[in-house]
């Protein structure tokens, strides 16, 4: 196993780990607000659950990039490739956008989701607008994912 391979693995670990932390915090923030709402209005469970699930995507994006990297370096379904240090660091760099973007946007999207859930609790008709507003935060996670994937594809292995 080469040092380059280890760099790439650290990248994959950060992508799945940090973006996962972002989503976990975000979903739990949404969940707290949701629990408060459904204690009073259990019939809104479906609506607030959707809102709570919105910050979950960052973790998925991070996981996705981690899997892509591991497939590329042969850690899943193949033999590990002897990466050079440059290749390894390049893949590490490719993992960073979704790792950092996922972490921060997951948490902030969770805060936004919590606000939308409270709004839904007061006025259930507004839940779709809350969803749209919450999804605006996710735009930056999507852009980060895009940059990660574009960089990942550009790295020759």
């Amino acid at each position, binding site marked *: 196993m080469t040092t380059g391979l280890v760099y790439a693995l650290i990248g994959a670990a950060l992508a799945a780990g940090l973006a996962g932390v972002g989503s976990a915090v975000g979903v739990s923030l949404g969940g707290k607000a949701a629990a408060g709402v459904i204690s009073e209005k259990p019939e809104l469970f479906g609506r607030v659950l959707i809102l709570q*699930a919105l910050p979950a995507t960052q973790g998925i994006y991070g996981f996705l990039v981690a*899997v892509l990297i591991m497939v590329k370096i042969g850690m*899943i*379904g193949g033999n590990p490739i002897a990466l050079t240090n440059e290749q390894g660091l390049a893949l590490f760099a490719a993992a960073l956008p979704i790792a950092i973007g996922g972490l921060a946007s997951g948490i902030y999207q969770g805060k936004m989701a919590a606000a939308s859930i409270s709004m839904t609790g007061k006025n259930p008709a507004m839940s*779709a607008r809350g969803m*749209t507003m919450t999804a605006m935060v996710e735009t930056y996670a999507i852009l980060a994912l895009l940059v990660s994937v574009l960089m990942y594809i550009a790295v020759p292995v």
Partner: protein
Amino acid sequence: MIVPVKKIRLLTAISEQGKLIEALQHESKFMLFEHENDPSLPSDINNELRAIERGIKALSKYKKKKFFAYHEVKQSEFNTIEAEGKALLSKINSALKTIENAEKEIAELQAEIKTLTPYLNLSVATKPLSELVRTRIVIGQVPLNLFEDFAKEADEKGHIFEESSRDHEFVYGAFGYEVVYESQALILLNSYRFTEVTLPLYDTKLKALLPELNDNLANKDKAILEAKDSLKALSNDEEKLRIYYDYYYNLALRKLVVTKTTERVAYVEGWVREDEFETLTKNLENKVDCDIEELAVQNEEMVPTATKNNKLVKPFESITNMFSVPNPNELDPNPAMSVWYWIIFGIMMGDMGYGLALLIIFGLFLKLAKPKGGLKDLATIFLYSSIPSIIFGILTGSFFGVSVDLLNIVGKWFGNPNLTSVVLQPVEDPLPMLIFSLALGIAHIITGLVLKIINDARKRDIKSMLADAVSWILILVGLVIAVVVKNQIVLYVAYGMIGIGAIFILLFSGRDKKGIIGKALAGLGGLYNVTSYLSDVLSYSRLLALSLSTAVIAFTMNLLAGMVGGIPVVGILFAAIVYLIGHVFNFAMGLLSAYVHDGRLQYLEFFGKFYEGGGYEFTPFSYKLKYVNAIKENE
């Protein structure tokens, strides 16, 4: 299409007003001026409705639940259900009352038996004991550990104690003393923590009493069983009770309608769609003796928005209405929006397998469960969106994350192996997909700008049209041509278009501002909007990101399932579980993402260009049904 509405007044004799309201509810074409979507009901009606609901709940315990229940009722049955429903409800209520009372009595009897049990062996009846003059008997219990000393001391002091029974804590029995020694006896009782119980006074011995109590208990049990049997028998009519609920609720809605009256005439005012006016007039005049007057709409009066679209567009109206209801003076955004929503949804799902899943799941759901209202609209939208999902699945060659080149397979059958239907590969080659997404975004935005032109043309606001719509179309199209075409002459044309667009913006953005400086600043500010157009177009890159994430996660799940499948013996089972859970998860998340992000693209990028909204829906006075799915017209 937005249909114009008329303001009308319906007049009838006061005695006929009930009939008029009923006819209006039946026709469902007339919107009252004063209306509430969810009116608060008077408490007596609410109580009755709650009683009916309790009845339904009680009966449904005895009825097997159907997974997808569908209730349809004939109009004639619906109108005449009242007597039957009332009778049914009173039967249910009396049965419930019987059960409730019997249960209460059983609890009392059981409590009584429990108190009596320790004293069953007493040799005398309780009533004569209480009538003794010189001696007093108290019945109660002494803690077991103190009992020996207590018995001895009682004996020494000349009192008597008759033990009835004992358990591991107490000794139960009757204590007797002469009234003259009362104070001394009471001190004794206190010091040994004797607790007195009050037993009911009976003439017979307690032991002889027990069978009677048990008989009573059995009788009550039987009464409960009988009442439950009768409920079970009534449960066949549960359907009728449900109809009665809806009947009663709609009756209440009719009662809530406020008619205005003069000496002899009652009238209601409201809205009717112009295209339904004739039908309403005709149908009403057949049923009720009434006059219809058309009223003039005041200038500042808000008219409700009535939309009329075909079956394909109709469900998408709910998406628009969640954002804002169109105002009656603008172009209906729904036809254009529905097509774009449909296409974008398909790209975001982008998998043949998930498309088929959408088709099957929501097709069956609509067919079997027959949902109403918003849920029906949403399910229909998902059902429609299965088609573009399958198409884009074919174009990206993805079937549950496995690459499948459909046309190639078909081609091989016919001996032509060079065909391919895979034109976009988000995972292997994302750049073409990115360009496709952005191009689609530009087309979407230009559609919005065209709608803006139409709206401005209707308002005869040429300057706004040139500054905010035509200019940007020129710039966007010019930019696209400049990027795509390399021909020198065409390039000049493109630069020309961009230039003209910019000039329109500079000239007309400040149309409402006063003074040269104000106009100039507004013009420059208008040009600065180019950044917002840039971010709008880039926003469509989410099409690539979402189709990428769906594809890669599906691929990962297949990979994981394959790896687990390598385990001997149980491998296949585990692989099936991983495969199933993984794809269900991916499908659900993909559906949620597509729904949310498609909505966002419509609301912000598309509606932002032209849509005003701020209207309110035309909601005719009609039946509101909770339990019944549909009322069938009589044949």
